């Protein structure tokens, strides 16, 4: 068992909207403890008014992402031991999104952009048609598979400085979604996918900083997906002559 007397120094963002400040709490250290456990302990044992968000606790729902010591992480699968700096922890709401209260960021812009990037599936067959067979080793399917484990946690979106500088930019998650659709045999209008990511906030704004790929908790690679979109749209640019 752990040394019960050991305490963690945890500063947590408190506030609504644009205003707020970090507040420090002493939290008992445990042998096995995630950042989400720490936040929950504060809410349950120190200050019940602390607002934060989680659901599954096992890295599937994507609702628990926060800034931990300046880096976006899924808190339910982040062990305190791995991120502790001199016995201290700083937890804040996700970057690049408006704050609702305390640690809960407003995810609306993130999902709005997901939709703007064409993230909604538009079926090419109706229920009366036979089900389309997709061979698992089809190259397009292999490429699409690389991106489908996205849990919409917005860690990549918070990590990206291009999002920070350019509010129109769709961001890594939405663009990676567009890339999987582009490679999906069941999507008929590929050009429509490319068109929705070729406007003013589209994939061409990416500066290949690679923070998305570096911090994705599911080890996906939005950087390469966006490069794929750039390549595909450049090809169609030459084909169509515009």
């Amino acid at each position, binding site marked *: 068992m752990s040394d019960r007397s050991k305490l963690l120094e945890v500063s947590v963002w408190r506030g609504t909207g644009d205003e707020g400040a970090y507040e420090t709490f002493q939290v008992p250290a445990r042998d096995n403890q995630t950042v989400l456990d720490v936040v929950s302990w504060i809410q349950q044992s120190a200050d019940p008014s602390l607002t934060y968000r989680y659901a599954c606790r096992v890295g599937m729902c994507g609702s628990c992402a926060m800034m931990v*010591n300046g*880096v976006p992480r899924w808190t339910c699968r982040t062990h305190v031991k791995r991120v502790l700096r001199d016995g201290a922890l700083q937890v804040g709401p996700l970057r690049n999104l408006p704050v609702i209260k305390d640690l809960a960021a407003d995810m609306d812009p993130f999902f709005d952009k997901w939709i703007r990037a064409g993230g909604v599936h538009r079926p090419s067959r109706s229920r009366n048609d036979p089900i389309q067979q997709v061979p698992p080793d089809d190259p397009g399917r292999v490429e699409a598979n690389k991106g489908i484990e996205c849990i919409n946690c917005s860690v990549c979106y918070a990590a990206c400085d291009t999002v920070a500088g350019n509010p129109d930019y769709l961001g890594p998650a939405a663009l990676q979604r567009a890339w999987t659709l582009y490679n999906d045999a069941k999507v008929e209008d590929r050009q429509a996918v490319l068109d929705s990511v070729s406007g003013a906030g589209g994939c061409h704004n990416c500066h290949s900083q*690679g923070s998305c790929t570096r911090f994705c908790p599911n080890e996906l690679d939005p950087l390469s997906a966006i490069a794929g979109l750039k390549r595909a749209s450049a090809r169609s640019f030459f084909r169509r002559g515009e």
Partner: protein
Amino acid sequence: MMLKAHRNHPLWLAYMLHRLSGLALALFLPVHFHVLSLALTRPESLDRFLGLADNPGVKLAEFGLVFLLAVHFFGGLRLLALEFLPWSARQKTLAAASIAGAFLISGAFLLQAV
């Protein structure tokens, strides 16, 4: 200035280097163009200006400019490869390493020759 934690990795630093070198080159260009066009209007002041090149400070600045150009050039090649060549990460590393190697060897040769 401390680097923010989410920026502390090689690709982000490469991005910043590319941006800063590009910005510096873009600011330098008008000066460069202006000085050269002196050849047309006032050749004697261009000569006086070029005479400055023996000054060690100016030498250093010259080196800085060539360095910026080289940095932006290789950073640009890296981006073009990243965006337009559907290679695996390993292939890209190998390609970058061989280009850097070739540059090192030819650079060393040049220093010998000059």
